[in-house]
Each structure stands twice: as structure tokens, then as C-alpha cells.
């Protein structure tokens, strides 16, 4: 793939004492790409992602995110990325509009911009008329879609999604991925971890982490060819079985 690199990691490593959570991983992600970051529980996905988000300092290696260095410029990185965690990350006791206003506000959007974005977002999700109801009253699927759109409300260069579709029904997951494609087509790079292998097939490229290393990195089609499997499920199982580390 040819394009502007927005994430490039070079031998990125994180150790906690004797334990090497992330072991010399090297990869690039280009602008507008949907990059799937797969791995069994405990393979080191979350730790790697935290380093890229500026939440955790690497032990060694280097990484640039949105053009900024993860060691020295993590405050600048934070301004240029969006993040949605595996836990549901909106405030249940605030209304839809208040949630949008809050998250847009802490990224420094102006009042006019916030208003414009809020209306756009509410229309996009067909939530007009409901914007004053508490998020608590929304079904889980809607909340996840709302959380995604809020994570990109400030038009970040990259959005990091940590198992965004956990516990969501297949139809809503489909709709969720439509939102992801939409964001990607607007040039937002999507870095996503998931447990659902059908979702992995939606990605442009996927990496599979085993015991802190990246053991495979290619487009889903190439990986399936290489591992002679008809689905990503088969590819993942072949790789994950090699894991020595206990999953948690």
C-alpha cells in the first residue's frame, strides 16, 4: 500500500519488570486505512495501543503517531487522535447533546463548531427529537455508534477503537462498520482491535499479535491464502495456538 504514513512503529517494546508485554513490534499504518489489530487476550494489544495513544511510555523502540513522537510529544498526539475504549465510554446521566458537547468541548472545539457538529451527528444517527434524553435510555447498539461518532467529533487524524463492538448484535455491528468505512473514506485512519474474525475481514490490513510479537501482517485475503484457510478464523487459530503465554 502506498500512502502517507500516519503511524509507524519501529521495534516498539514495553516491559513490566521481567515481563515483556510488547516485544519489538514494527509496522506502518497509512492515511485512511482501516487497520485491524488482532490477538488473543493477553497478547499485548491493549499495551501497544496505550503506547500509541500517549498513555504509556515505551521501554524501547520508536513510534510516530500522526507525525509526533510518542516519547516527547504525547500531548500533541492526544490532540490529533480519537479514542473509544472497550468499556462503554459515554456518561449515562448526561443527555446525548450534553455528551457531544462535553467531548467536543474538551478537544477545544468552538461553540459554533460544537453546535454544527452536534446537529450533524444527531441527524446521522437519526436521533433528532431524542437529543435531550439521557444516554442511559438508549439501546447499547445506538450508544456504541454514538460513542464512535463522538470519538471522531474533532476530526482526528487517527481513531483508536478498543474492541468497540463487544456485546453488540450482528445487525448493529454491520451498521457500526458502515460508520467506520465512512470515517475512513473521509481520510480518518482507523486502528481497531476486535475479537470478531468476521470483522477482521472488513479491515484493509490486519496484524495478529502472539505473545507480544506481531506474527502476521497483511490484507485478510493474502493471509487466508498464505495460511490456506477459507476464513480469518482459521488463520487466527493457527497463529494463536502457538502462543506460550497464558491468556487471562
Amino acid at each position, binding site marked *: 500500500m502506498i500512502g502517507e504514513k500516519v503511524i509507524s512503529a519501529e521495534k516498539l517494546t514495553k516491559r513490566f519488570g521481567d515481563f515483556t508485554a510488547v516485544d519489538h513490534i514494527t509496522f506502518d499504518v497509512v492515511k485512511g486505512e482501516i487497520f485491524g489489530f488482532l490477538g488473543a487476550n493477553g497478547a499485548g494489544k491493549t499495551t501497544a495501543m496505550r503506547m500509541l495513544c500517549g498513555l504509556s*511510555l515505551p521501554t524501547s523502540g520508536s513510534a510516530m503517531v500522526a507525525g509526533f513522537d510518542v516519547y516527547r510529544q504525547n500531548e500533541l498526539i492526544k490532540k490529533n487522535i480519537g479514542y473509544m475504549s472497550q*468499556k462503554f*465510554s459515554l456518561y449515562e*446521566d448526561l443527555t446525548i447533546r450534553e455528551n457531544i458537547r462535553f467531548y467536543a468541548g*474538551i478537544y*477545544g472545539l468552538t461553540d459554533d463548531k460544537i453546535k454544527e457538529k452536534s446537529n450533524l451527528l444527531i441527524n446521522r444517527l437519526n436521533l433528532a427529537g431524542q437529543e435531550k434524553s*439521557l444516554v442511559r435510555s438508549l439501546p447499547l447498539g445506538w450508544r456504541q455508534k454514538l460513542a464512535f461518532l463522538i470519538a471522531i467529533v474533532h476530526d482526528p487524524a487517527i481513531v483508536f477503537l478498543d474492541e468497540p463492538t463487544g456485546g453488540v448484535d450482528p445487525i448493529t455491528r454491520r451498521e457500526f462498520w458502515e460508520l467506520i468505512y465512512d470515517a475512513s473514506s473521509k481520510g480518518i485512519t482507523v486502528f481497531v482491535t476486535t475479537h470478531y474474525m468476521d470483522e477482521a475481514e472488513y479491515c484493509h490490513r490486519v496484524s495478529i499479535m502472539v505473545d507480544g510479537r506481531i506474527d502476521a501482517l497483511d490484507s485478510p485475503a493474502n493471509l487466508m491464502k498464505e495460511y490456506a484457510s477459507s476464513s480469518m478464523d482459521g488463520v487466527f487459530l493457527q497463529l494463536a495456538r502457538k502462543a506460550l503465554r497464558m491468556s487471562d
Partner: protein
Amino acid sequence: MSQFYIFVKKECLHIWRDRRTLFILVWMPIVQIILYGFALTNEVKNSRIAILDQSKDDATTAISNEIAASRYFNLVKNLHSYRDIDATFKQGLIRMAIVFPRNFQYDLLHSNRAQVQIIADASDPNTANTLTNYATAIINDYQLSLNNNEQLPYTIKTQLRMLYNPELKGAYNFVPGVMALVLMLVCAMMTSMAIVKEKEMGTMEVILVSPLRPFWIIIAKTIPYLLVSVLNIACILLLSVFVLGVPITGNLGLLIWESVLFTVTSLSIGILISNGAKTQQAAMFTSMMSLFLPTLLFSGFLFPVENMPVALQVISNVVPAKWYYIIVKSVMIKGLGFFAVWKETLILVGMTLILLFISISKFKIRLA
């Protein structure tokens, strides 16, 4: 700084939406002040007593009348025999009995020596002491009135003056104590729970990825509780002045600033607790155990610290509420100025800085 303002606004919305907690936050101090001020009083008033008068002469009648008329005593029973005394105590009808022997006045006037027995229920030692003192004082007064016409060669007269609290009202003691207790609970417990709630919900992670700096996140989370505390201080002071009749003799401005200082101390304790706690319940429990009890025991508001064993006295020094309690008493009740409380103020400032430093640096470590 509009990001900061947006955060504070969001925090206020949380408090506003959670009406039940808001209700508790506002009503707790009011209820406590009224409870402590009226119900939990250690003043002795209208204690039920009985008199066994075996003499029934002018002297015993005069003394009995004096005692019955006093606001400390309420004469509920005239006894007829010694056996009645024990029975009446056992029934729990009275707290004290006074016994005049036969020929009381005769002895008094002719042999110059008369005896009167005072029997008190000492299962509550403080009250028993107070009651016997009051009774003795009334009897002594009567004796003095007998000697009115005579000039005794040597007499010592004691003159009592109760400084700062001439009516010996319990509220003078409780109001500063309740202020310490309420501010400690509201600030420390509520902030620690509010911060831990974001961790539990997973929203903390999202905020930490945002450009907002952790230091400002913490400050923004505490500001609404600072405002609630100021409201609480105002409520308590208004109640104490207009309902309990405890005046603010010192400088109101100084009192408020000292209270704000103590509030900040409590907030930093709350932040510290939130660093360690993983769930809201854990935060609440830690606050209760590490704050409520020490504040109650060691602030000096229920039990005088000077009477405790030395080890406990030393421990009491690390309880911020103790210093705040001393400050409020000095400023509010005694009417002293800043020069009387600068040491205590300095101690509180020191504690606050140390607590803030530890809790904020720990908060940052957790992110790395």
C-alpha cells in the same frame, strides 16, 4: 481555559442529575446540626429527683422548695422511707435522691451541725457529678442566707465567670465539630467517589486520552464539591446563629477562609483515596473508616484530646479535623483573630500541600 470550564459544567450536571445524593449533601449538615444541637446535648436540665424528708421543718421545706424551683431539677416524688429510695432508683424514675434526717432544723440551730444525704445514680458519672454539685450549691446558698446577719471573721467567696459561653450551652461545642465532620465527609467522600466512578465507568480512560491534562481533570472534578461545601458552611453558620443561638463572635471572613482551607484539605484526601480505590464502594468505605471515625474521636469535639493516653494524643495530631476544630472554636466562639490561629492554619496548609503533592503525583504515575 474553556475546556476546563466545560469539564466543571459537566461535573455540576452529574451532581444535579443525581438528586438523591444532592439531597443528602444539602440536608445532611442541616439534620446533623439540629440533631447535635438539640437532641445530643450534655447539658443537665430538669433531672428527675426525689426527696425523703424525715424532718418536715422550716429548714427542710425551704431547701426542698429551692431545689424544686431550680431549672436543673424536677421533683417527681416525695419518699416516705429509706426502702423507697432503692426501689425508686431501680424503677429508673429518678437520677438523684436527697435525704433529710430527723430533727434537721433542731440540729442545725442547736448543735450547729446538720447532715443531708445526696444519693445519685452514678451509672452516668458526669451527670451524677453535675447534679450533686448543683444540689450542694443550693444547700450552701441556703446556709449563707441563714448567716446573712452575722459577720463571719474569715470567708472566701468564689465568683464564677463562664467565659465565651456564659450559659454553658452544648451547641457552642457541637457547631464547630459538626462543621469539621460535614466538610470532611462531603469533600473527601464525595470527590473520591466521583473520581472512582469515572474509572469504573471507563470514561476516565477516554478523558485521559484527550488533550486535557490530568492535573486539570482532578481540579475540575473537585470544584463543584468545593461549591457544595461553601453552601454547607453557609447553612451551618446560619442555623447556628439563628436557630441554636450560637453567635459568630470573631471575623466572619476569617472563619470562611479557614473553612475553605479545610475544604481543600478534605478534597485532597478525597483525591488520595480515589487513587487507591477501584470501586465506588471501596472509596466510600475507605472514607468512612479513615475519616469519619478519626474526625469524631480525635477532633476533640466529643472527647477532650487532653484526657487521652499520650499515644492517642500523638495520633490525633495527624487528623486535620483537630486543627480545624481548634480554629473554628477560637475564631467563632472566642472571637480571636488570625494571630491566635496562625499556627493551626499553617499546619493545615502544610498538610494540604503534602496531600495534594502525593495524590497528584500518584495520579500521574498511574497514567504512565
